[in-house]
């Protein structure tokens, strides 16, 4: 298509980098063509704030560094940031009326790290309000449309990030995952996404949803591209007390993931025609006994067969508390969110209601008017489960169950298998405007939630299409703690022999 931006001519970030370094293409050209494409696809509503001046300024800086011959790894690469990452210059709204005009005086650490690596930001990406939602229909600024079929949703909460990458508007995007918010939209939009081990990527500057569950991670077109975006942001951050200094003894810093990835890929290459020989893939019974759509199950099964043809061995495992993960998550998540969102009171920033008679009214009216219904719902649930008389029965009980769930995973990943695979979601993308009840929506997260509860790294990669409308299906990979590199290598091995990740919406 003539609208396709310049960067889509390159199959990977690595290829794009070569072209930039050899000055075949400039960062400013790339930025301008991305800006044009974004405008042309405004119908997707993937972006909440675009500022050409700011982007071109960053592109100019990148070109300068490239001309000097010592450009950092991502110089000139067009990316975008989910609107939960605070940014100087661009507004940060969290897709909420509460922050419609908010401009942060500082950048999130992840934003600063990618800027330091030379990437050029094309703007802020739409998402579910405060990260709460699974289909990006809960943004205060309108839903995002799935580029594969604009009558459907892109998944959530990072719907804007996934849609923008899928539509070729960006080479990659940042996103956050609290209960599946990277993996689900990646799956629904036929792109790749990774949620790293909890504590490996900084949460400083990420508007907090569920503090013990949130992790930031990239969405891009392939495992190779994910690596390029993940490695610079995997680092200890002193500004985040939950950030890890070490990963099982290895310093948490850029290079760690790349090192593990390279080593794994080398081993795969050395193994010739069965690169994954010896790899045990755990497939949980419970991931298939739920209400999973038959054609989605079939697509996942085909992917697993593909893995077997690469030499891997399928192992049946059981994660008996899978169904419990939903109530556990929907106690802990809302509890933490309800407290995290208390700061939004119209005093120091944010929406303040127009009419009020006293302080109480000002605060409680501003909040009730500024927050959408899903946010209010979760604040109410969270407040309820923490309130006097309920704390032991709900919150404490949930945290105990959480440990049991984490133990189940640890047992499986140390004794029975090397990686766990299964579906990301029970269905493909649904039609816009057809959401079920709150609890129905919540239960759709059943396969993704556990990795957040346990803090394990997890990915989604495209593995086919399903349903009458041929919508993307995502394969989920869950690894052991700190195994991002190995996980990406396993994903890469699959993408080496398949082309699902190379499909583009306009070809359908």
């Amino acid at each position, binding site marked *: 298509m003539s609208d396709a931006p310049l960067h889509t001519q390159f199959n990977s970030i690595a290829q794009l980098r070569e072209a930039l370094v050899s000055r075949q293409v400039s960062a400013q050209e790339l930025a301008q063509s991305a800006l044009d494409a974004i405008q042309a696809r405004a119908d997707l509503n993937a972006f909440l704030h675009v500022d050409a001046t700011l982007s071109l300024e960053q592109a100019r800086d990148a070109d300068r560094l490239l001309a000097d011959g010592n450009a950092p790894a991502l110089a000139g690469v067009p990316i975008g940031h989910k609107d939960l990452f605070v940014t100087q210059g661009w507004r940060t709204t969290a897709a909420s009326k509460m922050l419609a005009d908010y401009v942060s005086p500082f950048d999130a650490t992840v934003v600063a790290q990618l800027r330091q690596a030379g990437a050029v930001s094309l703007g802020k990406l739409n998402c579910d309000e405060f990260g709460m939602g699974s289909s990006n229909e809960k943004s205060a600024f309108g839903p995002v449309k799935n580029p594969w079929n604009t009558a459907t949703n892109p998944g959530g909460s990072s719907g804007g990030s996934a849609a923008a990458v899928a539509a070729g508007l960006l080479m990659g995007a940042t996103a956050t995952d609290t209960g599946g918010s990277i993996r689900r939209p990646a799956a629904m939009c036929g792109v790749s996404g990774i949620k790293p081990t909890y504590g490996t990527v900084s949460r400083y500057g990420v508007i907090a949803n569920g503090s013990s569950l949130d992790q930031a991670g990239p969405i891009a077109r392939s495992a190779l591209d994910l690596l390029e975006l993940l490695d610079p942001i995997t680092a200890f951050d002193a500004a985040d007390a939950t950030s890890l200094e070490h990963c099982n003894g290895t310093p948490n810093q850029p290079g760690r993931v790349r090192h593990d990835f390279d080593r794994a890929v080398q081993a795969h290459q050395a193994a010739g025609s069965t690169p994954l020989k010896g790899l045990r893939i755990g497939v949980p019974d419970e991931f298939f006994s739920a209400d999973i759509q038959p054609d989605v199950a079939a697509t996942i099964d085909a992917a697993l067969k593909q893995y077997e043809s690469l030499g891997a061995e399928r192992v049946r495992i059981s994660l008996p508390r899978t169904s419990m993960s939903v109530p556990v998550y929907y106690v802990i998540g809302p509890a933490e969110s309800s407290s995290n969102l208390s700061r939004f009171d119209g005093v120091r920033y944010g929406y303040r209601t127009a009419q009020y008679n006293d302080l109480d009214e000002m605060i409680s009216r501003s909040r009730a008017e500024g927050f959408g219904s899903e946010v209010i719902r979760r604040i109410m649930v969270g407040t309820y489960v923490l309130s006097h008389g309920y704390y032991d*029965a709900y919150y404490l009980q949930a945290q105990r169950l959480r440990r049991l769930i984490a133990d189940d995973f640890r047992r499986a990943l140390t004794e029975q298998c090397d990686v766990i695979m299964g579906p990301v979601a029970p269905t493909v993308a649904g039609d816009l405007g057809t959401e079920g009840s709150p609890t129905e929506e919540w239960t759709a997260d059943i396969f993704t939630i556990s990795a957040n509860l346990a803090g394990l790294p997890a990915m989604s990669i495209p593995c086919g299409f399903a349903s009458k409308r041929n919508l993307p299906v995502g394969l989920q990979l869950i690894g052991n703690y700190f195994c991002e590199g190995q996980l990406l290598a396993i994903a890469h091995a699959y993408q080496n022999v398949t082309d699902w990740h190379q499909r583009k919406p306009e070809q359908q």
Partner: protein
Amino acid sequence: MSITQQDVDRIARLASLELTSQQSESIQSDFSDILALIQQLQSVDTQGVEPMAHPLCGQQDVALRLRDDVARPAATTEQRDALMANAPATADGLFLVPTVIE
């Protein structure tokens, strides 16, 4: 099982949310499903299990990291104003709120 209107009011007060009657009714009806969902937690015996403080506390030692006691110098009034730029109401470098009578 669900919650009463009184419960909704109490929780809304705790959360500083002035719900419209529509919002309030909606919450009340949502809660019957939600409570059914989260009450499933009671079916599991977790006797003797420690609650999980940090997702990785089962994996490696996680202790609170401490920062050296070094102070940044005070901000200039310009810097201060920049941090307060998003405030709906300020005066003389102070955030303004409707007066609370104690």
